[in-house]
């Protein structure tokens, strides 16, 4: 070992080790950070396109009988057009008041079905039961069925679809 190098407090070996660590770290960061972005990119993309969907003319909606209306929405996801299906239960009261509820169970997102014989919404997955107004009767669901924003324009019931 040359005396001069030791006197400066930095040996050649230490210098090379340090430089390799810095270079290696830089290369790892340059490749590693974009790699994380690459993996999570589609999850960060939010398609916040809300639309009002015409559900049905009000004269077609039965009174005091939960009725399912379905529609699907196509959207460009990734490199493909994906159709998402929606189902909404509409309950029209005798006073022409409307209640619109999503048919997605609040437990684990199965689809609930109105049972005329039981007079409740039943979720087939884990036996959740919801009353006519959407409140929980029994089973695992943590909260009532989600109600959907709606309006009536020129005799047609519209629902507000927010998520993709």
């Amino acid at each position, binding site marked *: 070992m040359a005396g001069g190098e030791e006197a400066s407090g930095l040996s050649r070996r230490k210098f090379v080790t340090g430089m390799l660590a810095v270079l290696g770290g830089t290369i790892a960061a340059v490749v590693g950070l974009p*790699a994380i972005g690459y993996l999570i990119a589609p999850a960060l993309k939010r398609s916040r396109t809300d639309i009002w969907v015409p559900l049905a003319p009000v004269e077609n909606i039965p009174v005091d009988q939960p009725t399912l209306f379905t529609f699907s929405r196509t959207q460009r996801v990734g490199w*493909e057009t994906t159709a998402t299906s929606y189902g909404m239960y509409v309950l029209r009261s005798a006073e022409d008041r409307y209640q619109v509820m999503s048919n997605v169970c609040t437990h684990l997102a199965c689809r609930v079905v109105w049972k005329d014989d039981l007079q409740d919404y039943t979720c087939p997955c884990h036996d959740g039961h919801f009353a006519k107004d959407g409140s929980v009767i029994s089973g695992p669901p943590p909260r009532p069925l989600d109600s959907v924003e709606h309006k009536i324009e020129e005799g047609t019931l519209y629902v507000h679809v927010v998520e993709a």
Partner: protein
Amino acid sequence: MIARAYAWLDHRLGLTTIYATTLDRKVPKVNWAFTLGSATLFLAVMQGITGIFLTVYYVPHPEQAYDSVNYIMNDVAFGWLIRGIHHWGATLMVVTVFLHMLRTFFYGAYKYPREITWITGVFLLLVTLGMGFTGYLLPWNQRAYWATTVGTSIAGTVPLAGPWIERILRGGEALSALTLARFFSAHIWMLPTALLALIGIHLYLVVRLGISHIPKEGE
């Protein structure tokens, strides 16, 4: 604390021994041409990593392959970078493998006792070219399609077995979904597995036998 943890691990795993035999081994005085093997290994590792990342989005289906590659290039964050590294890394790897072979040949480093290192190296060259050939089809664009049509036709000119080889490569008469699927399978499973095994033997022999010195005049 770290020193104690290291000592604990070292006692059980023999890390110091591994380091001493693989990285701290004695080497003759050599030149920059002796870094070509390491450069190739580095590129191979990069190809493996970027390749794994590409499979997150790529779909080997005639109707989706081209669109999914487009999606990687235009919509995924840094998709252009990951695919760019894979694309150029592939080309560069063929170059470094070839230069590495030339170095070995001209320095006579393939001679006793390193014949098996050379033989595994020949297979590594073939597997690398196979990776290039199969990977080239995957974007499923015009260039890929016709390059593979031509490439498999060339395989078809082999005497006697030619038409048979051509059919096996294509998975039928012409290029189809079957061709794309089998090229994909070869590209991400079969050839990389072979590559990994061969690299293992190749590196084991390099460590076991050491590297040869640069021949002197008259040797």
